[in-house]
């Protein structure tokens, strides 16, 4: 269905504001603008990386796409099916195809379930009629797939290390043969040596089962390794989007440049040319008018950037930037609806 060029997951204008309630009457006094006007397109078998510092709305974006959080506005299409307006039954069917892997390998596994119970939960929800033995066999197969021994089935999560627990979480996400997985910082809670193993595992699984990923992380080097395309988020906005290598080698948005300069270089003799951002991230309750990055931007032009809201524009083929200061290339095209 997606061979005709349309992406497997198509996100348009996604928005999520969290109300802040105060007082006895719980009046809404303000909103946290967690995700604002986010567009993403994840092709079948593709991997889109979503990066940004903590609190910029990456996780909210991932969960809103899966409707684990109800988005306030925007559309999400999965294989042409409207996810945002899906009714209960339709959403239940969609759940089989869309899964999530969590950041924290401790809180994401129910401490009272055995590993078999955790991994087999989806099977017991959807394929109960195929019998206990089938589910047991399938769980053993899934555990082997993620590099664990089937002996783990009857043990409890607290008996495993962080890396092993993350594998259990991956096996759970694989149980229903999904076509799309949101990886919500799957490696940031792990040791560097284990990180590489888990990323390799995710890559192998993608190849083997043809799964599409939305790979959320705050580490650009990790994302670059696994993604075909990268989207950079800042304060609820996507500020730059483009092919992974192009974004990393030739960043266009000033924020992306700063992010890339922060990657440590494993050579003590090279003095990195760091771009140190001034100040803190502004509060998403009351983001700056105009460009949200303006107060910390090196290249800002107060007259324009502090006043006018930039839109995500295509500046080179396949590359989108949300900045007044980036010269549009020849293929300029308005993309925001």
């Amino acid at each position, binding site marked *: 269905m997606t061979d005709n060029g349309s992406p497997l997951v198509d996100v348009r204008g996604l928005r999520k504001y969290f109300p802040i309630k105060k007082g006895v009457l719980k009046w809404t006094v303000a909103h946290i603008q967690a995700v604002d006007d986010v567009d993403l397109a994840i092709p079948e078998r593709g991997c889109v990386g979503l990066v940004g510092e903590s609190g910029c709305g990456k996780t909210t974006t991932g969960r809103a796409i899966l409707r684990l959080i109800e988005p306030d506005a925007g559309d999400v299409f999965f294989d042409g099916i409207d996810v945002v307006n899906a009714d209960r039954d339709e959403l239940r069917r969609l759940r089989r195809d869309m899964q999530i892997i969590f950041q924290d390998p401790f809180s*994401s596994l*129910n401490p009272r379930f055995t590993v078999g119970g955790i991994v087999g939960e989806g099977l017991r929800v959807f394929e109960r009629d195929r019998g206990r033995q089938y589910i047991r066999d399938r769980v053993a197969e899934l555990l082997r797939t993620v590099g664990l021994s089937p002996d783990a089935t009857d043990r409890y999560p607290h008996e495993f290390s962080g890396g*092993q627990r993350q594998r259990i979480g991956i096996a759970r996400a694989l149980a229903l043969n999904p076509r799309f997985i949101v990886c919500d910082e799957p490696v940031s809670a792990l040791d560097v040596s284990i990180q590489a193993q888990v990323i390799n595992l995710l890559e192998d699984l993608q190849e083997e089962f043809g799964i599409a990923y939305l790979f959320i992380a705050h580490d650009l080097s990790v994302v670059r390794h696994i993604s075909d395309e990268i989207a950079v988020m800042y304060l609820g906005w996507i500020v730059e989007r483009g092919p992974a290598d192009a974004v990393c080698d030739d960043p266009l948005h000033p924020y992306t440049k700063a992010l890339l300069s922060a990657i440590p270089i494993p050579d003590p003799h090279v003095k990195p040319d760091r771009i140190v951002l001034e100040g803190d991230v502004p509060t998403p309750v009351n983001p700056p008018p105009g460009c949200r990055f303006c107060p910390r931007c090196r290249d800002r032009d107060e007259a324009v950037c502090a006043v006018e809201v930039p839109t995500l524009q295509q500046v080179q083929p396949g590359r989108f930037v949300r900045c007044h200061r980036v010269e549009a290339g020849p293929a300029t095209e308005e993309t925001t609806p």
Partner: protein
Amino acid sequence: MSEAYDTTETYEAEQSEPVLPARTPLQESWRLLRQNRLAMGGLVMFVLFFVISVAGVFLTTEWHPQRPPLMNPRTTRLPDKLRRPLARYNAEALRDDQRPLGGIYVLGTDSLGRDVLSRMLQGAWVSLTVGFVAVGISVLLGIVIGGMAGYWGKWVEMFVIWLIDVMLCIPRFILILTVLALWGPGLFRIMFIVGLTSWMGTARFVRAEFLSLREQDFVTAARSLGASDIRIIFRHMLPNALAPVLVSATIGIAGAILLEAGLSFLGFGVPEPHATWGKILDDGRKYLFDAPWLTFIPGVAILIVVLSFNLFGEGLRDAFNPKLREGEPA
């Protein structure tokens, strides 16, 4: 999986890595509980109380009209009234069927010459059932009401919090007295009313637990796997919220036993001639100086049972406290 990952080699290494001791959270709690002497004493007393109550039912119930029970709490023996504990029975003045078991009044007799031991045994069952059934009702109500409030939030939660506050404002003892006065006394009514008026603590506990559990990733994972609300509440969240409920239930049983004793003492308890500890206490009150055992025996029994339930409950609370655990960072 024909392809070998570069991860499969390290998998061997990860497997041989020593894992934490293979103890379930429950085993760990049991280990902690065993170290707590007071709590274990409470548990032993609780088991003993249970055994005595069940034995009491068998010994004091008239199973067949032709065959009187082994120990009849109803037999009155006016010549043998207010006898001391361990007194022998007066064989000349009494008929054969009035003879107590073993020919001895182990705990003495009351003002009508009834054997206090058999009356205590009969009353133990009342205390036990009132404690368990009333707390069972209240825990069930508390879980359902608190769970709904914690899981769905919004107006359900507001309403439940309001209801809890209102219920806590009503003086419980007076409410129960009023209802029993209007309805008339009865064992099941007492259980029912005590249960209906004591669910608030449990509901608060469950709500608080659910509020924090709802945000946990494993609950989100269950939702993403398509599990229904009912499945999430009962299979994923409730087992994780049950520990504090169990603790408060254990202490609640003590409270219910005390409440029933109080009601019986005031004459609103189980109707005559059925004996309960509160009523034995009330009967003995008039003979406090002539026959002090009539008040001391039920009083001490209530004290011991309530105390042991409280100690056991607090031991449970400590045992379930993750901060006291070894190894796992909770």
